[in-house]
């Protein structure tokens, strides 16, 4: 990280918070809108979570939800069981997964300089999905702790393949996307293979999982996912500055002293880790990584230091909301939240495609 400040053009009337440390080589420059937006998003997310925990076959009043979660009321043991064992881990997983996917999408869009890139389009999610389905179908007895590792490996292999195959005197963004579509197709072919030949019970499990669902997730899943987020979310924030530089174009970035390919590789690893871990936990929940960064950009603008946390919260909110909708729309049948996000997200993607029609 070299200290070349990017000058804000005087036409934009945005003021910034700048956080710099002289001892550490760190500097953050955050749009003044960011703290307020983050606060509002956090409040909205908490509201959705409380509603979601309260909703279900055994409804719980919202106030009791809050009290029970905070430990103020433990007299009603039914509440404690339903909330702590059944519903809370699920809601938390939904939020965490959304956060991870949103950050992965933000990084990928910055990386490819293409507003239409998303982990599900460039084959990273398909790779993770293949690895996880293979594990479910071929070794049904393996504990879920290994699922994130397998999915990470799958995502990493897919990403490496895409990155390597798109390489030709550097990695051009358009080739990355097209090659990603191809690698995704190979991975889905193998996934279909597993689905066709697996035992029908395992296959049903795998399908529900593939469709992107947080059904039946418990604290074990939270524990498996948490380390990945704890390591890679701060990493993504540290890389935000480099992403801003990369966005100016390879040549400008290079002349500003950025080692372009190296930065791109680091960003790709972070992106893969986050999407792999979330795919492992909740399957392929599509289009969150696509929608969240765009919505966040409209809220706080383009600078990645503010964009990444905002997108993360937006993503968490989207998945939590999708899960709530999936549970309530056709109750008692449950629609996986991945289907909901795809039904909402794909049209949104097409709208973006339309809006970017002249680029």
């Amino acid at each position, binding site marked *: 990280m070299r200290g070349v400040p990017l000058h804000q053009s005087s036409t934009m009337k945005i003021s910034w918070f700048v956080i710099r440390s002289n001892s550490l080589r760190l500097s953050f420059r955050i749009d003044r809108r960011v703290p307020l937006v983050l606060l509002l998003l956090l409040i909205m997310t908490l509201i959705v979570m409380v509603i979601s925990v309260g909703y279900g076959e055994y409804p719980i009043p919202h106030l009791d939800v809050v009290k029970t979660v905070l430990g103020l009321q433990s007299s009603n043991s039914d509440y404690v069981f339903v909330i702590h064992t059944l519903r809370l881990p699920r809601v938390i997983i939904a939020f965490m997964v959304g956060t991870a996917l949103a950050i992965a999408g933000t990084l990928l869009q910055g990386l490819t300089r293409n507003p239409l890139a998303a982990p599900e389009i460039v084959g990273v999610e398909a790779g993770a999905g293949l690895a996880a389905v293979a594990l479910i179908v071929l070794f049904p007895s393996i504990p879920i702790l290994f699922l994130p590792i397998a999915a990470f490996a799958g995502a990493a292999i897919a990403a490496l393949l895409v990155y390597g195959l798109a390489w030709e005197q550097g990695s051009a963004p358009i*080739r990355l*996307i*097209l090659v990603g579509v191809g690698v995704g197709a190979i991975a889905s*072919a*193998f996934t279909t293979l597993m689905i066709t030949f697996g035992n029908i019970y395992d*296959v049903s499990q795998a399908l529900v999982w593939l469709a992107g669902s947080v059904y039946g997730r418990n604290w074990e899943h939270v524990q498996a996912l948490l380390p990945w987020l704890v390591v890679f979310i701060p990493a993504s924030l540290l890389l935000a500055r480099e992403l801003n530089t990369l966005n100016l174009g390879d040549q400008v970035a290079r002349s500003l002293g950025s080692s372009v390919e190296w930065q791109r590789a680091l960003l790709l690893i972070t992106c893969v880790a986050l999407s792999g871990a979330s795919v492992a936990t909740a399957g392929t929940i*599509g289009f969150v990584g696509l929608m969240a960064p765009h919505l966040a950009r409209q809220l706080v603008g383009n600078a990645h230091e503010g964009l990444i946390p905002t997108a993360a919260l937006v993503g968490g909110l989207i998945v939590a909301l999708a899960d709530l909708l999936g549970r309530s729309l056709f109750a008692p049948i449950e629609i996986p939240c991945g289907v909901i996000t795809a039904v909402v997200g794909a049209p949104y993607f097409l709208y973006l495609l339309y809006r970017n029609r002249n680029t």
Partner: protein
Amino acid sequence: MPQSQAQLHQPSVSPKRSRSLRLLGLIVGILLLALCFVVSITLGAAEITPNTVWQSLVAFDGSTNHLIITTVRLPRALIALSVGAALAVAGSLMQGLTQNALADPGILGISAGAALAVVASTFMFGSLSVQSYTWIAFAGGAIAAIAVYLLGSVGRRGITPLKLILAGAVLSYLMAALTTGILILSQRTLDDIRFWLAGSVAGRDLNNLVQVFPYILIGLVLAFSLGKQITALTLGEDVAKGLGLRTGWVKAIAAIVVVLLAGSAVSLAGPIGFIGLIVPHIVRFWVGADYRWLLPYAAIWGAMLLSLTDLAARLVIKPQELPVGIMTALIGAPFFIYLARSKVKQ
């Protein structure tokens, strides 16, 4: 990305082969195809001698081997031929229409649309007749094709490969998500349809083919008669207009033919990808970019490729077999990547 789109469709660097050489190639192709056909009837899980195969066709005696030939292998081989030809011609037309070397019914979402339509109607109305399957697949494929084309061509710069492929990929994703949603709601539909969904030419009887074949035939004939116009179109919209072509009509008819062919193929065999992508590129080596020749060549080589892939699919893990759609994806997707690498320069 402005330069890339011009370069993605390679201009006609056609090998200038004489008419007689092209005709010779066509005849050799037909002979090879006949050979493939015979081999694909002869080889399989049960060992049957070529002589028995011949006997079963000319002097059917009702023995097990004869029954295997006439009720299992013959329909299967014929379906592989028809589906392969239909997909390859549909792919060639799409590549010509969209000026895009990466076009294919699978990649651009037509197969996924047809599949979603079939799954949704199986879910709602239970098992359906082949005839209604076919029409439903047409409808689904047509809607998806129109949507992808419109979305890929919005904007000042018209149709660009990236927009088209992204639109196709995302619509496929959406339709696959909806398909999965339906299959989760109903395990019965899942069990009925999962082998079909993977793309397979097995387990269809001759009756299925007989009902769908007319559409394929009409599609092929129409496609072959459009050869000259499509060649003109690939020279660019303006040139084509200058040559006196009513481009709107040609495009509309060609699009209908694509849907007819791809829809028939999907309703017969489920979504089989990448045949339509690979074959046009293979035959271009021999005939160049002249669609009058390219289309018949594509039909023959498409039929051959799918027959051979199907043969491989049932021989690799004999006596079990792979759905052929998985085999074509495993061969075709690397080819797609190769094309994306070599045709997209930046």
